[in-house]
């Protein structure tokens, strides 16, 4: 039955640091690579050299944020399945293909049972599910369930492909149900947040808000004086010698 488990032993998920993500899309490629070559139907592309379209389990949006004061910022925003505790995509599934695992909370699709109706994708507020147009079945992030428990891989690789590949350390994987885990401590320290809390999905994945960026040093931008200002100030306010004559001559023209 596609009912949700009452509780899960663990809450495996991702913590995504919007402060350090540089928007390189390496996680997108690593995800597509791993999930095309391993578990389940490959992630197909359609018309790859023309009007390209394809299945991805992880996508990076970029946003411009205009704060109340100061300059705008660019925030790169990775988005994949949030493995919600109250996952609406699971309960709507008519075939029993969609399920949430009681042992670790990962939301998965049993591809052998999926009929490709797409209702779970409609139920997800985050756009985490996509029907693969070649296979005709629903694809979604598996949290690389075939890596994280895989004893044939070196221990360092037993992480989701996106986390393992991220060059800026913006993605973290762990048990968010354990308050002492590294990821839970990171969330507590940095004030991690749920996406769309008003949708009542109780997402497991957490997003760390960007820190305040280094302030621009120009006093006219910040209103403050830089600590180096006394040394950087012009030695002479008024030009001297030849420059004084040139300045005067140009003024008189």
């Amino acid at each position, binding site marked *: 039955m596609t009912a949700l488990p009452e509780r899960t032993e663990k809450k495996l998920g991702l913590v995504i640091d919007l402060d350090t993500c540089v928007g390189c899309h390496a996680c997108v490629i690593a995800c597509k690579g791993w999930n095309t070559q391993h578990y389940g139907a490959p992630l197909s592309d359609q018309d790859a050299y023309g009007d390209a379209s394809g299945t991805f389990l992880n996508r990076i949006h970029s946003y411009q944020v205009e704060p109340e004061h100061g300059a705008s910022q660019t925030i790169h925003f990775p988005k994949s399945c949030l493995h919600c505790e109250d996952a609406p995509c699971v309960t*709507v599934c008519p075939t029993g293909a969609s399920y949430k695992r009681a042992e670790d909370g990962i939301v998965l699709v049993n591809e052998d049972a999926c009929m490709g109706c797409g209702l779970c994708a409609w139920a997800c507020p985050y756009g985490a599910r996509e029907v693969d147009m070649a296979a005709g079945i629903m694809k979604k992030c598996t949290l690389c369930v075939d890596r994280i428990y895989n004893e044939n891989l070196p221990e360092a690789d037993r992480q989701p492909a996106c986390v393992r590949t991220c060059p800026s350390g913006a993605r973290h994987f762990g048990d968010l149900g354990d308050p002492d885990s590294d990821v839970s401590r990171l969330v507590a320290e940095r004030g991690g947040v749920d996406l769309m809390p008003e949708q009542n999905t109780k997402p497991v994945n957490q997003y760390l808000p960007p820190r305040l960026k280094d302030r621009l040093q120009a006093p006219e931008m910040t209103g403050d004086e830089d600590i180096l200002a006394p040394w950087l100030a012009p030695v002479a306010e008024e030009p001297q010698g030849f420059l004084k004559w040139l300045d005067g001559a140009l003024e008189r023209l």
Partner: protein
Amino acid sequence: MHPAPSVIIFSTLSGAGFGLLIFLGLGLPVVEGWIALVFYLIAFGLTVIGLLSSVFHLKNRKNAWRSYSQWRSSWLSREALAAVASLVLMGLYAAAQVFLATTIAPLGWLGAALSLFTVYTTSMIYTQLRAVPRWNQWATPVLFLTASLAGGALLSGNGTVAILLLALLGVVVLWHWWKGDRRFGEVGSTLETATRLEGRVKLWEKPHTGENYLTREMVYQIGRRHAVKLRVIAMGLMVVLPLLVLLLLGAHHVTGAVAVLSYLAGMAVQRWLFFAEAEHVVGLYYGAHGNITANSSERTPA
């Protein structure tokens, strides 16, 4: 949401077909022999064409049989079961009326109740989706049920009941549009709640250069600019024209046929709008729905 023709045909035709089954099951009218055969051919024709059409939007049809398994949690599964159960019961009831000229009234009542429940399950598939605020309101099941009953009354030749139900349908549809236009703001999802970024957030770059499944399926925007005209056309064909025909010309076979065809055409337009106008919150991540959330995002504390 993408208005897939298969789903529009399904909900229009099967809604009317189940509506007719409800009236026939209740014995309004009690029909037997050849007349019963014609009535049931129309009723089963509409429902079965509708149900078959709905199968065409499945991308992996070989697993469709599994959709009968999750009735405890899924409205779509309940719909699949209720549809088959009501068709089987009404099939037995119809067979007795057509071939044995016998009316087994309790069987008909049960079939009518199941047919009504089937229409309710269809409506709940949409109503349950919090991510599509326009559908996520109580007027959605009321709309589907009223539409089905009005269609059934027209098809079964219950002139007076049809007039009352069509008038009610007009009111319900107007309410659904009025309330639907406000639901996105009421749910309160904005690009700011979607990203939880502080300040005014704008999409700067999409994750991909082309379209994808999400943008095709859920960020459908085409034809919205004609929405007002289409609403007028839908209301005119679905409610106003059938009402005028029935009230001015009286209910008999020719006027009934005109009213039914006009109702079905209007219903198809209404269902097209039901999908095309429905805004999915995932559109926010793609910079859509800014016009709806502009007011509510100002209220969001930055």
